């Protein structure tokens, strides 16, 4: 309903504008080129250019102040996270400086050099020195960014097997996630979707004859011990999905027919993250909103929205069908002891089969 009302109001505004323009047109002198800009038009639009410059600056400031408190800029929860965040901040600062200066020059020139009758523009077609300057400056800045960026990228994507990472499979299907832990041998058993046997509860298609598969553990929640490198092996059984873990600055597509991988080391437990000032404030802000949203629900006699508490999440970030928007898995980062206790409670693959 709100939307319809908005549109009706907009249409009325349009009609009003149209009428005003008509009056404006009628008031204008009937010369031959009446639809070509006059000095008056030039002046008016020149001032509007300066107004628009102010608008760009204001919207920039408002966005940064109101929504600039971003998970991307701080409090990453993985070992490589801060390197991405630093690169991001450096890139943002460069962008911010270039944006501020170039938008100023563009709009200020549009204001300053507004057309006047009888004025003649400067015939200025070329200047090799100037052009060399603004070719070389971007080259230097970009060379720096490229070197820094590639360095970061190679460090993140290179998996160091000597760290003895915990190997976990992330398994995607329309529209949920499963995790497969490799068990005591830290080796995932062989698997293929052709081996899926729903009747026997072999839902990920593990090779029942493979000794490595016997101690694998399949779960619907992802638990990670803090400080321990993890190597994820991604698989999908149907369409493309993308395993997106924004708090860990981690993402990799899950591709049917191939195994992709991404490794990182979680550095902050869920419990510790909940205690940080930033997350506390965010949770409070979200809960205020949820209380507000619950009011009309309560009036209708429905259940209110549940209060929110922070959790790390794995989201699907590649369009995968109707319920793409609800394909998620909770991630719990905990101490080694908590993790050991949790994994002990889970059923090993050989015990989970129905015979």
């Amino acid at each position, binding site marked *: 309903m709100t*939307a*319809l009302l908005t549109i009706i109001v907009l249409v009325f505004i*349009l009609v009003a504008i149209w009428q005003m323009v008509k009056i404006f*047109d009628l008031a204008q002198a009937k010369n*031959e080129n*009446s*639809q*070509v800009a006059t000095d008056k*038009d030039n002046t008016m639009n*020149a001032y509007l250019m300066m107004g*628009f410059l102010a*608008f*760009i600056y204001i919207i920039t400031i408002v*966005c940064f102040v109101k*929504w600039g408190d*971003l998970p*991307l800029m701080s409090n990453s929860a993985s070992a490589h996270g801060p390197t991405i965040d630093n*690169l991001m901040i450096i890139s*943002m600062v460069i*962008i911010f400086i270039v*944006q501020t200066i*170039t*938008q100023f*020059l*563009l709009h200020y020139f*549009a204001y300053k*050099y*507004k*057309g006047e009758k009888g*004025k*003649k*523009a*400067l*015939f*200025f*077609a*070329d*200047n090799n020195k100037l052009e060399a300057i603004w070719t070389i400056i*971007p080259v230097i800045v*970009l060379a720096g960014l*490229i070197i820094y960026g*590639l360095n970061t*990228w*190679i460090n993140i994507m290179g998996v160091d097997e000597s760290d003895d990472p915990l190997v976990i499979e992330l398994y995607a299907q329309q529209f949920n996630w499963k995790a497969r832990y490799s068990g005591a041998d830290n080796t995932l058993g062989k698997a293929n979707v*052709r081996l*899926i046997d*729903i009747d026997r509860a072999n839902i990920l298609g593990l090779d029942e004859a493979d000794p490595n598969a016997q101690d694998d553990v399949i779960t619907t929640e992802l638990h990670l011990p803090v400080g321990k490198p993890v190597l994820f092996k991604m698989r999908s059984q*149907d*369409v493309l999905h993308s395993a*997106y873990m924004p708090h860990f*600055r*981690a993402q990799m*597509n899950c*591709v049917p*027919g191939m195994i992709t991988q991404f490794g990182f080391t979680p550095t902050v437990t869920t419990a510790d993250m909940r205690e940080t000032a930033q997350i506390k404030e965010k949770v409070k802000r979200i809960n205020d909103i*949820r209380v507000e949203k619950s009011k009309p629900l309560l009036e209708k006699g429905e259940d209110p929205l549940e209060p929110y508490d922070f959790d790390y*999440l794995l989201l699907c*970030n*590649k369009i995968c069908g109707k319920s793409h*928007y609800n394909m998620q898995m909770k991630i719990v980062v905990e101490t080694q002891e908590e993790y050991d206790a949790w994994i002990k409670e889970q059923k090993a693959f050989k015990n989970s089969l129905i015979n």
Partner: protein
Amino acid sequence: MSAHADTHAHDDDHGHHHKETFVTKYIFSQDHKMIAKQYLITGTIMGVIGVLMSMMFRMQIAWPEEPNVLFEALLGKWAPDGVMDADIYLALVTIHGTIMVFFVLTAGLSGTFSNLLIPLQIGARDMASGFLNMVSYWLFFLSSVIMVISLFVEAGPAAAGWTIYPPLSALPMAQGGSGMGMTLWLVSMAIFIASSLLGSLNYIVTVINLRTKGMSMTRLPLTIWAFFITAVIGVISFPVLLSAALLLIMDRSFGTSFFLSDIFIQGEVLHYQGGSPVLFEHLFWFLGHPEVYIVILPAMGLVSEIMASNSRKPIFGYRAMIASILAIAFLSTIVWGHHMFISGMNPFLGSVFTFTTLLIAIPSAVKAFNWITTLWKGNLQMNPAMLFSIGFVSTFITGGLTGIILGDSALDINVHDTYFVVAHFHLVMGISALYGMFAGIYHWYPKMFGKMLNKNLGYIHFWITAVCAYGVFFPMHFIGMAGLPRRYYTNSNFPLFDDLANVNVIITIFALIGGVVQIIYLYNFFSSIFFGKKATQNPWKSTTLEWTTPVEHMHGNWPGDIPHVHRWAYDYSKPGHDVDFVPQNIPLKDGEEELQH
């Protein structure tokens, strides 16, 4: 071809030999000016559909739980009780992308202005092949019709995103839209590509062969350079998409396994073995990335021309502008992998693509600085076309700069496929290219229809659109940086994003205003055809050849001889002349030197 060119060279009385009927004049016309108008009007209709779709899904994002009478009226069974269905949401997003990228900003923009301006600005009677040109338009029309028809199929239109990655697009059981809807999408696109190729070949041949005497390549207006290089990129990259589409059709209908392997869906194992969706991604983006330059280069050409004319100054750094077009065109074909950093592609390959991608920033920066310098010490005539050109540079800078983040593979990990990407490409190629198109329409409307557009409506159109464009896409970067994925039907299953809901409402309100305000433009456009002020021959006092043709259209463009060219296209405010512009067909004065630009 040479025979054809020959006839053009000496048939000065070429023109009204045979009587034209309504059908040959307005429907199956071979006249490039009429074909340009046909492209523009078809593109406009598709644009209205595309924008309406975006307004609908923006309303869904802002008010996800609310029934909406508009949905009920427009979506029918897809919005039971006025609540939008999740399948149709994805379909709207998909078709919006397809229509805007291909049908509006490729065919509508390049098709219109390449057709209109290439013969007029190089001094040719018509395109090299009027017949191919006509076929090209009608193939485009046919593909538009098929795309629109696909909206009405039983299981819904294509809904796998405009990038139609298989297996989602290949398996009808994965998604309703991957049945008949996807078949029609693929057929429509195959025809579209054929149309685009015919058009591009025609543009290339025309620019190379039919330039008038004196029109050397270094005297060409930048518009023509842009259209020419765009056509070359199109010829290189569109066939690859065609092959991807054909292979996908085979996977879908004939059981081949080019893109599919090891699939278990809805309780059964499919027979596909050995293919890879990553192969499709490579093929798709081999076109898909050059495609964004196919969209933006013509807009750059139009803007360069309009800025020079309205600044009453030569474009700054003419040769650097050409060099940067060439550099962009070359680089555009070797950067496609930056869409695939996290596709499972080898990370080393990702490094290479990061390198080539960030290089594109250099020619782009040169262009932006040259435009800004063109304004410096000018005598700016603030016509609506000029406003849209300045707006183009503004959004191109804002949108282009965030490309430095997305092109950097390390940073892309975390913002890939979030709203950050949506904000980036809408500003840098969506809004910018639309501004370029609007600028072109306001500037060349007198040439197309012999009438003037109302400037005051143009001012209102520009300023409201400009504010809305930033209002929509600037805040969108921030919800992307907060980690919100794109193509989510609703975010209400993620309390994590609850505090971003109000940003989405603000964005949607700007989007609705921005969408509705285009009615002003449509009214201006269509009413001016009939009731607009009559145009003079050269209303903007420009130097290029199209303004030497009579206002009334005629077959063959010039009543007498084709004018010869004696100077480059940017002799604005040249010292030693009384007027502040010297058209290209005016010979050099005694002792006047042609600038070594």
